[in-house]
């Protein structure tokens, strides 16, 4: 019985890590996987979402107690809109000049991320802050006496499932989604077919940033937020996307799952940092054997 509950808790830990990775990777999978733009500031868009949630929780605590129970849902929407709007601006003033120079987007967006981090630090201070969780998010579910499943973890999982579903449905069935895929697969032909590819680029980038904002809002339920919170995840997230096969959403999900489970399992046997070293090394080794990632559409050049 004891072993079983350890196993269940361990699996749940892995599941939470999976959700964190997947939420971050979703936006990146769209921006990097579909557009080929390396957005190193992706983590900072996530931080924007997290700070938005924090601000809303402070606001409702002071001025609108009636909002306390539901501010989180508002925060998700506001985080999406804010991060998305900023994404639009960044695309307009920076990214669109760099589509033909992917390595340069990497440097430019890294610069952007440094500036954003300093802005966060100047505005919110270097200390980490955390949003006040509504009561219904506290506590845990106990299916048996030995297993404790925290509710905020369940919320994270639920949110991940819903968002992934939306992204999948959106890319496969909506008009914009089809346009996005067409543009990414063959820009010239998509343009010839009457798709405004500049508009598609803009919206895709903004949507990816908005997703990062939502991920940030979700993160506030499981951890605190600091100016550099987002940048801690950026390398892992890129590895998730590359490992999964850059152009495949299904691959992103599979790779987030395997990396998270690998991390959670090894963490059980050794220290966190060694577990991370082992996981990252394993990912790199597998990538050396299979450079196209887990699920590949075609061999990249």
């Amino acid at each position, binding site marked *: 019985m004891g072993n079983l509950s350890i196993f269940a808790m361990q699996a749940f830990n892995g599941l939470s890590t999976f959700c964190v990775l997947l939420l971050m990777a979703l936006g990146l999978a769209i921006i990097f996987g579909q557009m*080929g733009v*390396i957005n190193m500031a992706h983590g900072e868009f996530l931080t924007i979402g997290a700070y938005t949630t924090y601000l809303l929780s402070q606001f409702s605590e002071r001025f609108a107690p009636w909002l306390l129970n539901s501010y989180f849902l508002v925060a998700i929407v506001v985080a999406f809109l804010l991060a998305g709007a900023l994404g639009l601006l960044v695309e307009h003033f*920076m990214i669109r*000049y*760099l589509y033909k*120079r*992917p*390595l*340069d987007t*990497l*440097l*430019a967006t*890294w*610069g*952007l*991320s*440094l*500036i954003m*981090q*300093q802005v966060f*630090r*100047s505005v919110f201070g270097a200390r980490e802050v955390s949003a006040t969780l509504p009561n219904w998010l506290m506590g845990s579910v106990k299916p048996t006496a030995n297993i404790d499943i925290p509710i905020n973890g369940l919320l994270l999982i639920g949110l991940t499932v819903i968002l992934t579903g939306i992204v999948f449905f959106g890319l496969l069935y909506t008009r914009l989604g089809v346009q996005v895929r067409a543009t990414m697969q063959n820009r010239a032909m998509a343009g010839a077919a009457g798709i405004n590819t500049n508009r598609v680029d803009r919206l895709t980038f903004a949507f990816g940033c908005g997703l990062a904002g939502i991920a940030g809002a979700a993160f506030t339920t499981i951890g605190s937020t600091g100016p550099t919170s987002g940048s801690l995840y950026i*390398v892992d997230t*890129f*590895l998730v996307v*590359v490992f999964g096969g850059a152009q495949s959403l299904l691959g992103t999900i599979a790779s987030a799952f395997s990396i998270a489970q690998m991390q959670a399992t090894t963490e059980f046997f050794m*220290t966190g*940092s*060694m577990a*991370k*070293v082992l996981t*990252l*090394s394993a*990912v*790199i080794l597998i*990538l*050396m054997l299979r*450079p196209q990632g887990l699920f590949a559409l075609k*061999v*990249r*050049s």
Partner: protein
Amino acid sequence: MSNSAKPSLVRRLAATAWSTQKSRENLSFLVLAVVLLAIFPIFLDVFRLNLIGKYLTYAFVAVGLVLCWGYGGILSLGQGVFFGLGGYCMAMFLKLEASDPASTSIQSTPGIPDFMDWNQITALPALWVPFRSFPLTLIAVVVVPGGLAYLLATAMFKRRVGGVYFAIITQAVAAILSILIIGRQGYTGGVNGITDLKTLLGWDIRSDGAKVILYYVNAVLLLGGVALGLSLLRSKLGRILVALRDKEQRVLFTGYDVATIKRAVFVLAAVYAAVGGAMFTLQVGFMSPSFVGIVPSIEMVIGAAIGGRSSLFGAIYGSLLMNFGKSYFSEAFPELWLFVIGAMFIGVVMLFPDGLAGIDLPRLFRSVKRLFSRSTKPTAGAGIGVPPEAASAPTGGVP
């Protein structure tokens, strides 16, 4: 009126020296040598000279990056790994020399580095044993980072992984190595790094005299590195590199072994970085994981980019400028530094892809004049002076 012939002679000489790419490079090399070997040592005191020496160790990395990124099109975000490995190899030797049984007699195990003793390690780990020997250490400084670069490059380039993917994977390697160093405290000194380095073969490296000598060793090594880079770029290999950066497929189809060439230049860049790292340890007296991870690696890239990614000379001045700016701002306006460096990243990528070396001064002057005659809008970064010797770079497109 008597010296009316003089300017024309000077002008004629200058025109000759500036006439061809090759003579421009030779002149730039001469200017660099004079600046490094004469001007800095004459006008700066030992403290500042040591500081410049420290910045110049980053210039090694930048020169390597010009070769592999500017000319080869291979962006590595993991140069800190090689810089750090070179530096750690040197630091391990110096640390063992500093921890002789006599001076560590208060430890529970005398004769091993102090941080090992603090971490309850009772015997020197096998990893450290080769670093008792100076020749082996010198070999390790080159072979360990070079070997890692060789392995990485073989695995990646032979499978035709390049560009963005290579950059991300090198970045992950940087993350792994810094986590590993911080995590294995007993073997590496952890987050503090390897400190309290005192002597090199009995010679006190902390004295003023030693600092000046080390500066000269560093400068001469750097000049040698630049000379090697120049001759490499003038050779056939240099032309293939440029071709490879611009149209890899065509070079491949012409029958060249692209993967081997890319591997060679990547390993060379790693060795440059490693030599810089070893010189860093010698001049600064310690090595820590803060020079290994993702952030320092990217700063090295931006140093090269600011100076000019396709100019060996520009990259050196760029690294100097960038590191000088870093220490100046982080002392005077710590909260501004991230804004400045962030803006430099964006500015150099969007406005000056070829960095300082790529600024065409006369054209810039004309466009500024045009801008001012139209409106009074200020121009970003237009005031940056470019050293004339940095303007010798062939302007290369970005892959």
